[in-house]
C-alpha cells in the first residue's frame, strides 16, 4: 500500500482486455434478431434531389425495409447545433438526418436500407434510383463567402453562418506605429481524424416500455442521450446510451450524427435491434473533419522584435451543415487564444464561419488551439527573420513572465499559471540548441539544408466553468461528477460521467483514490460510458477528463476520507481532531497502534452496527465539480529537419518536447499522450490533408490517398516535462491530451522554413510534400 501511487508510471488497469482481444467495441456487439443498416449517400457535393425510387431495393434478398427522407421527415427532428455563439448573427439552417430535397456534400445521407446481413444491405443500395439536379459547388471557405458563390442554404447569404470578432487593446494603432510588420496567408487544411475504430451505432427499441438503448462510439454518452432525446423525441429517462470500448475519437466522436438518429429510427420502426457501422471510406466522407481555415494574418513588432500587435481575418469552413459544436471551435477555442504565451497588448481578429460543400467540420484534437498556435508561431518566426534575430530569443523576449496565480491577456481571458521561459529553456537545453545552430552553420557551409524549428505554446483546456460555457453559448454545462462507493470488503467502484476511450483514466482515477485513502490500485474499478449506471457528465474531450472529472473524483474521495475520520474517531473513542491519517490507517495521534484501516471503516460503515449519532450508513460520496477557471498547460518544442533540395524530401531527424501539464498522476500515460499528440501534429505539417476537387469530390477518399503517419517515418521523440501546478485545481493537474498536437505542427513547419530560408523560400502551404517543397525551391531559384 503506498500513498506515493500518485505520480507512478504503473501499467494500465484497462489493458488486459485490450491486449487479449477480449474488449467489446460497438461493432463487436451482436443482439438476437439484429438487422444491419447501410446508408445511401449522395455522390454529388451539391444537388437538388428531383426524385427517389426505393422500390427496387425493397425487393432485394434479405431486405427488410428501406426508408428515405420522406419517411423520417416530421418523425425525426433536425440535427441540432449545440454551440450557439452569441453576438455572431449565427444562422442554424435546417439539417435533416436524411436529406429530402437537397444534398450539400458528398456523403449526405439520402436513404437507408435495413437487411438481414450487412452484405445484403450494401448490395441493395445500388437498387435505389435517385435523380439529382447538380448545383454549383464551392469548396474553399473564402471563395464560399464571396458574392456570387453558390449558395448552400437559402437563408444564409454568402454562406456566412456567423461572424465573430475578438479584440483587445488597439490593434490598428499598433500596426500604424509598428517599425516591423509581417504577414502571411495560411491555409490550415482539412484534416481527417482517423480514429482506428470506425463509428458505429446499435439501437434497440423496447416498444412496450418505450425504451431506446443506443450503443454508440461516443466520447460523451450523456450528451448523446440528450441529443437522441432532442432528435427522436424519446424522453431522456427512457434512453440509455452506452459507449462501450471506444477506439479513439480525437474529437470526431463528440458530435451526434445523422447516422445514430437514422439507426435509432430504423430500430423504432421495426422493433428489432439495428446496427450500422461505417466503412473507412464512409468515415472519410461523413465523420466530421478538422481545421479548414484560410487565415490572413499579420503581426506588428518593434525593430527589436518586441511584438506589439496581431490582426487576423479567418475563413473557417463549416462544411455543408453545422455539426454539434462547430461554431465554438474557430471562435471561443481559437480567437481567445490569440495571445498565446506572449504579451501581445493589441489584438483584433474577425472569424467568418462559412458553409462549403464538404463534410461538416467540428472538433479535431486541439480544436481551434492548434490553428491559433500555428499562426502565432509562424508569425513569430517571420518577425525574427525580419529583425534578424534568433527565433528562440525573439520568443524569450515576448513570453509572459512566470506567474503562479492568474495572468490576464488582451483577449479577455485569465491564464491560471505559467512558467513559459522555463519550458523554453528546458527545451533548448534538451535539444542542445546552441550546438544545433553551430551544426546548422556547418551544414549550410557544406551546402546542406538543415533547419531547426522552435515553438512555444499555451493552450486552454479543462473545459471549463459552466457559467462561462453558458456565456459563450455552449448549450450545456462543463462540470463533471463522480460517485465513489466503498463496498463492505473495502473494494471500490468509481462511477464517472466522462467517457475515456484510450486515455487511461481507469488507471489514473484509481491512482487518485489509492493515494487519497490508501487502498490498493487493484481494489478500485472505474466505471464509465453507460448513462444508466454513471452520473451525469459532459464527456471526454478538450483535455478535460483528468482536469475536471479527476477533480470530481478527488473531491468525492476526500468526502469519504472525512467521513472515515469521523467514524474512526467514534470507533477509537477519540475526538475527530485527534485522528491522524497515514497510508490507509486512521489512528489516534501519538498512538499509531490504536487504528482503523480504511477497510475496517468500509466494513463498519456498510454493516452500520456502531455508527456515531446522526451518521448515515454506507461509505459512498458523490461530487459535482464545476471548475473555477480553465487550465492552461504549456510548453516548448524543438524540431530538426534536413531537406534534400533536389527532391524536396524532408527528413525529420529530431523532435524534442517539453510540456508542463502540472503534477502528473501517471507519467507513463502522460508521455504516451504526448507521443501520440506530437505525431498527430507532425502529420498535417508533412503529409496529411483532406483534398476536395472543384466538384466537391473527396480526392483523398481512403487511407491509400490520405497519408497517415506510419512507424517508419518518425524519429524517436525526446519527451521531457516541467511541473507548474494549476492554482485552482484540487490536484494541481492541467491536462495533456492535446498539447503535442498543438505544438508540433508549427514546430516542424518552422524547422522546414528555417532550412529553406537561405534558398529564398519563406512559405509553402501545408502539408509540406516533397513535390510542393521542390517546386518552391525551384521557383525561388528561378527568381519566382
Amino acid at each position, binding site marked *: 500500500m503506498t500513498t506515493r501511487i500518485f505520480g507512478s*508510471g504503473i*501499467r*494500465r488497469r*484497462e*489493458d*488486459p*482486455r*485490450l*491486449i*487479449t*482481444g*477480449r*474488449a*467489446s*467495441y460497438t*461493432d*463487436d456487439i*451482436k443482439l438476437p434478431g439484429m438487422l444491419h443498416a447501410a446508408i445511401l449517400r449522395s455522390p454529388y457535393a451539391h444537388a437538388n434531389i428531383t426524385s427517389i425510387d426505393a422500390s427496387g431495393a425493397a425487393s432485394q434478398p434479405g431486405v427488410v425495409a428501406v426508408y428515405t427522407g420522406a419517411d423520417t421527415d416530421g418523425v425525426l427532428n433536425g440535427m441540432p447545433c449545440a454551440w450557439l455563439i452569441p453576438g455572431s448573427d449565427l444562422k442554424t439552417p435546417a439539417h435533416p438526418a436524411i436529406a429530402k430535397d437537397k444534398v450539400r456534400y458528398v456523403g449526405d445521407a439520402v436513404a437507408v436500407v435495413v437487411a438481414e446481413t450487412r*452484405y445484403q444491405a450494401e448490395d441493395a443500395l445500388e437498387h435505389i434510383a435517385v435523380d439529382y439536379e447538380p448545383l454549383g459547388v464551392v469548396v474553399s471557405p473564402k471563395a464560399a463567402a464571396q458574392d456570387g458563390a453558390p449558395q448552400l442554404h437559402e437563408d444564409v447569404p454568402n454562406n456566412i453562418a456567423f461572424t465573430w470578432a475578438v479584440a483587445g487593446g488597439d490593434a490598428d494603432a499598433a500596426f500604424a506605429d509598428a517599425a516591423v510588420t509581417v504577414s502571411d496567408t495560411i491555409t490550415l487544411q482539412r484534416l481527417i481524424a*482517423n*480514429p*482506428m*475504430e*470506425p463509428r458505429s451505432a446499435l439501437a434497440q427499441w423496447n416498444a412496450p416500455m418505450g425504451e431506446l438503448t443506443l450503443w454508440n462510439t461516443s466520447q460523451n454518452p450523456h450528451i448523446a442521450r440528450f441529443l437522441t432525446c432532442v432528435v427522436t423525441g424519446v424522453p431522456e429517462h427512457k434512453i440509455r446510451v452506452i459507449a462501450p*470500448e*471506444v*477506439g*479513439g475519437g*480525437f474529437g470526431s466522436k463528440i458530435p451526434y450524427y445523422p447516422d445514430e438518429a437514422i439507426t435509432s429510427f430504423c430500430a423504432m420502426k421495426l422493433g428489432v435491434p439495428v446496427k450500422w457501422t461505417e*466503412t*473507412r*471510406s464512409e468515415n472519410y466522407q461523413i465523420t466530421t473533419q478538422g481545421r479548414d481555415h484560410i487565415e490572413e494574418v499579420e503581426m506588428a513588432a518593434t525593430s527589436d522584435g518586441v511584438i506589439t500587435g496581431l490582426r487576423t481575418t479567418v475563413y473557417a469552413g463549416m462544411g455543408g451543415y453545422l455539426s454539434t459544436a462547430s461554431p465554438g471551435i474557430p471562435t471561443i477555442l481559437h480567437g481567445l487564444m490569440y495571445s498565446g504565451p506572449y504579451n501581445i497588448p493589441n489584438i483584433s481578429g474577425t472569424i467568418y464561419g462559412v458553409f462549403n460543400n464538404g463534410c461538416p467540420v467540428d472538433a479535431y484534437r486541439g480544436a481551434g488551439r492548434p490553428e491559433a498556435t500555428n499562426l502565432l508561431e509562424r508569425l513569430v518566426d517571420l518577425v525574427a527573420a525580419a529583425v534578424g534575430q534568433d527565433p528562440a530569443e525573439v520568443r524569450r523576449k515576448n513570453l509572459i513572465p512566470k506567474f503562479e496565480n492568474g495572468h490576464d491577456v488582451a483577449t479577455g481571458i485569465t491564464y491560471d499559471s505559467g512558467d513559459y521561459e522555463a519550458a523554453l529553456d528546458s527545451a533548448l537545453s534538451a535539444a542542445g540548441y546552441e550546438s544545433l545552430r553551430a551544426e546548422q552553420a556547418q551544414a549550410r557551409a557544406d551546402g546542406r539544408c538543415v533547419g531547426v524549428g522552435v515553438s512555444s505554446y499555451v493552450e486552454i483546456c479543462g473545459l471549463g466553468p459552466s457559467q462561462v460555457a453558458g456565456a459563450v453559448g455552449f448549450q450545456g454545462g462543463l462540470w463533471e461528477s463522480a460517485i465513489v462507493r466503498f463496498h463492505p470488503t473495502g473494494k471500490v467502484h468509481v462511477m464517472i460521467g466522462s467517457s475515456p*476511450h*484510450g*486515455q*487511461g483514466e481507469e488507471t489514473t482515477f484509481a491512482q487518485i483514490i489509492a493515494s487519497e485513502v490508501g487502498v490498493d490500485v487493484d481494489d478500485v474499478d472505474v466505471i464509465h460510458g453507460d448513462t444508466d449506471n454513471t452520473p451525469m457528465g459532459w464527456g471526454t474531450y478538450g483535455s478535460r477528463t483528468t482536469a475536471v472529472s479527476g477533480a470530481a473524483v478527488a473531491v468525492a474521495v476526500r468526502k469519504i476520507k472525512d467521513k472515515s475520520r469521523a467514524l474512526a474517531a467514534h470507533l477509537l473513542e477519540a475526538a475527530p481532531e485527534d485522528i491522524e491519517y497515514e497510508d490507509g490507517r486512521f489512528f489516534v495521534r501519538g498512538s499509531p497502534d490504536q487504528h482503523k484501516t480504511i477497510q475496517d471503516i468500509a466494513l463498519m460503515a456498510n454493516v452500520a452496527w456502531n455508527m456515531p449519532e446522526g451518521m448515515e450508513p454506507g461509505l459512498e460520496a458523490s461530487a459535482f465539480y464545476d471548475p473555477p477557471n480553465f487550465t492552461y498547460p504549456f510548453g516548448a518544442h524543438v524540431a530538426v529537419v534536413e531537406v534534400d533540395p533536389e527532391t524536396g524530401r524532408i527528413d525529420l531527424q529530431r523532435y524534442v518536447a517539453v510540456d508542463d501539464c502540472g503534477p502528473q498522476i501517471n507519467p*507513463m*500515460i502522460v*508521455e*504516451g*499522450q504526448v*507521443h*501520440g*499528440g*506530437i*505525431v*498527430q501534429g507532425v502529420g498535417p505539417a508533412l503529409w496529411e490533408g483532406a483534398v476536395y476537387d472543384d466538384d466537391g469530390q473527396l480526392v483523398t477518399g*481512403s*487511407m*491509400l490517398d490520405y497519408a*497517415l*503517419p*506510419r*512507424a*517508419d517515418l*518518425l524519429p*524517436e*521523440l525526446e519527451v521531457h516535462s516541467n511541473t507548474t501546478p494549476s492554482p485552482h485545481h484540487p490536484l494541481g493537474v492541467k491536462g495533456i491530451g492535446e498539447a*503535442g498536437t498543438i505544438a508540433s505542427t508549427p514546430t516542424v513547419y518552422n524547422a522546414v522554413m528555417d532550412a529553406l530560408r537561405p534558398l529564398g523560400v519563406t512559405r509553402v502551404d501545408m502539408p509540406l510534400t516533397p513535390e510542393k517543397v521542390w517546386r518552391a525551391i525551384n521557383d525561388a531559384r528561378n527568381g519566382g
Partner: protein
Amino acid sequence: MTIPVEITINGKACAGEVEPRQLLVHFIRENAGLTGTKVGCDTSQCGTCTVQLDGVSAKACTVLTVQASGSSVTTIEGLSDGVDLHPLQEAFWNNHGLQCGFCTPGMIMAANELLSRNPSPSREEIRHGLEGNICRCTGYQNIVSAVEDAAKSMGGR
C-alpha cells in the same frame, strides 16, 4: 450461392456455408464469433485485421473465406488463454504500447510474425516491420519499445 468451408481457428475447427465473396475477417468475426480481430479500413491499409494464416501473417480483409478453407488461422484470442499472457501481450502492457486498443490485436499479430522472422530486430527494423499497421493513438514509440522488450524476453537477445 454458398460454399461450405472449414477453417481451423485457434486450434478449433469452424465450419460454415459462406458466400464466395465473404472476406475472411468477416468469417472470423461473424461466423466464428471472434471479435478480437478488427476491421479498420476497406482498402487493406490499416492492419487492424492482421492474423496468422498457416503461420504467416495476413491481413484478413484481403483474403476470401473460401481461399482460407482448409487452412489454420491464429487470431489474437489464440495467442494466449488471456490470463497467461504471450510475451508480446505482456510487453505491450508493460511498455504502454496501446491507448484505445483498437490497433493492438493487429499490431501484436504483425509483431509476432516480425519476431519469428527476425528474433532480435533493431528499433529501425521494428519500425519498418510495422509500417503496414496504423496506430493513431500512440505515435508508435511505445509500440516499438514493446516489441523490442518482447524480443528480449523471447530470447532474441
